[in-house]
């Protein structure tokens, strides 16, 4: 569906993106994982025609993406890294405006707007202004605004920055349901756990270059086995076990109860979304 080939972009002497290629198929989530300044946002901008690449091409189902008002742009939904909403227009007003920009009108617009609100769980807040929303609600509306025109390709640039685990899980569920509807999804992040949990394939970028790519399993195999210093054990770790490990020159720095801290957090606070009343 989406095909980016050898994208390059420099700002002065700084090569923001220096040869990134990736392919995304329908019903697939490709994670672009990289630290700050790796070139993730620049890559996304080139894929939706906001930034003209110095070299390389982007096509969607074979049609080249350009800077113009071409029809191919209708097939892309962009969720910018910053929350990009009109704070003084109601949630529904924002969705209707972005729908209208993609030539969606009348009853179709009405249906799509409500479906998008429903998906991100904001149907009860449709008439309120984002200015009154919590960070998590804004993030979800930020995603909904890219869905009204029902794009085939969804570009999500760090869509979960600054949200609580409840909203994050809701967003993950939304994205998974979009995948199941056959969307081709690009998801950038610098959180490994996110990439691990959500993505079918992962492209790791650094300094504008792809340093590795593949499925989670194939990426794990890159690490030599001797480097593995982490083991998960079933059952209690008692003094006997610790003594055994010490005898083999191993130090236990940290012992974790079963499940992650997030599991504990969610166990204590529940999965209910924390939207403003």
């Amino acid at each position, binding site marked *: 569906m989406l095909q980016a080939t050898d994208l390059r972009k420099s700002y002065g002497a700084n090569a923001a993106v220096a040869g990134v290629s990736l392919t995304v198929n329908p019903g697939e989530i490709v994670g672009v994982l990289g630290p700050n300044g790796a070139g993730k946002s620049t890559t996304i*901008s080139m894929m*939706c*025609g*906001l930034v003209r690449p110095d070299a390389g091409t982007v096509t969607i189902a074979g049609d080249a993406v350009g800077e*113009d*008002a*071409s*029809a191919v*742009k*209708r097939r*892309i939904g*962009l969720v*910018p*890294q*910053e*929350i*990009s*909403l*009109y704070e*003084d*227009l109601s949630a529904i*007003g924002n969705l*209707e*405006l*972005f729908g*209208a*920009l*993609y*030539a969606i*009108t009348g009853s179709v617009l009405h249906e799509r707007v409500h479906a998008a609100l429903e998906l991100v769980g904001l149907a009860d807040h449709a008439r309120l202004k984002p200015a009154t929303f919590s960070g998590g609600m804004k993030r979800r509306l930020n995603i909904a*605004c890219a869905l009204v025109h029902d794009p085939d390709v969804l570009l999500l640039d760090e869509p979960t920055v600054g949200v609580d685990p409840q909203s994050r899980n809701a967003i993950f569920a939304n994205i998974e349901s979009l995948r199941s509807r056959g969307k081709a999804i690009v998801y950038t992040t610098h959180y490994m756990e996110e990439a691990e949990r959500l993505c079918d394939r992962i492209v790791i970028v650094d300094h504008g270059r792809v340093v590795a790519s593949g499925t989670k399993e194939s990426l794990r195999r890159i690490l030599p086995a001797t480097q593995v210093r982490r083991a998960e054990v079933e059952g209690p770790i008692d003094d006997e076990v610790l003594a055994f490990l010490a005898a083999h020159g191993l130090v236990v720095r940290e012992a974790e109860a079963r499940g992650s801290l997030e599991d504990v957090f969610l166990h204590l606070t529940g999965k209910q979304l924390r939207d403003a009343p």
Partner: protein
Amino acid sequence: MNALAALVQKDLILYFSNRRAILITLAAPILIAAFFGAVLGGPPKKPARVPVAVVDLDASSVSKSMVAAMKADTAFALEESSEPEATARVREGKVRAAVAIPKGFGDEATRALFRADAKRPQVTIYYDPSQAVTLALVKGLLTEHAMKAVSQAAFSGETGMKVIADSRAALKTSPAIDEGERKDLLSLFDSLERVQSRGAAPGASRGLGSQGFSMPFETRDSEVTSGGDRKYNAYAHSFAGMGVQFILFMGIELGVGLLLMRRVGLWKRLRAAPVSRTLLLGSRIVSGTLIALLLVAGIYAAAIAVFGVRIEGSVIGFIGVAIAFALLASTFGLLIAALGRTPEATRGIAILATLLLVMLGGAWVPTFVFPEWLQSATLVVPTRWAIDGLDAMTWRGLGIDAAVFPIGAMLACSAVFAWISMRRFDWEE
């Protein structure tokens, strides 16, 4: 709803959802126009009396009748005082000028009326240099009343008879005059003496002798405005001026808003949509024009309802000027966004440029008080077209033909602004 309509609707909602800002955009021009209007004339009224002081050092019958006549003149508010006090009043700005009638004025002036060689009394006029135009006014007033009082004295009473007798004696002995002229002048004096003695007789009809010379004409003062019962209303001009100024400020805010927009993610979202750049910028022109028009309507609604301003000329012309100006203000804002770099720097420079433009356009003081070269130089200033156009359709009461030039000029200017903006606007900061 298509993309353009949606974008324009969004701009209008965002602009008008900020009620406090709207109130300020509307209240500021109305308050300032009310102030300027009140200071520069207010609603229709009679010309004010000019305050003038008079010092009568002569206290003769001639000077006294002169002062009495000046007091009766409605053009002036006359106060009598001593010379030092009068000059102090001028210095303080309490009176515009002070007239000092010297000692011996009555006698000397009457004599000087008939004899070229006689000593002329000197009347001093102290005037406020910041009000120099009143000097001519006071001179004119003085001439009228002095001529009347002096000639009255010359043709009647004791003074007159004595002056004629003196003049006759001087004429008889003067060697410089030829015989024929001497004879004619002597017979003129004879007739004058006859007039004087007739005026002095009891029960005599009041002829020339008792009245002196008077102005050989009278004036009827008629204001030239839109005619009918309507009179010039200074508010009409001040509302045009302040309306233009503040609506241009609104244009700047829209332009700066666009520059700020370029910094946020929303800008990416708009540009990622399949709409052309022309449509994105065009929607800003349309919404800016509509906002400006609504502001014009609000400002003039107050001017009409509260300050008695009337559209005395063509209503269609007025609407045309308003639309053309609204378009001008909107494209001006876009031009600023296209030429500016950062929003902060752009706002400062734009406000300065706008103040200059509105000053030269006559928003603060009407252009007719400018020196002549400036009046013709400012003919190319777009704000002048707007203000002249609004003036023409309001208090000047001119027809639609007077609106054609301002409308055409503003539309042409808007087209140039829009064209430059579309070409020059940077899509990224």
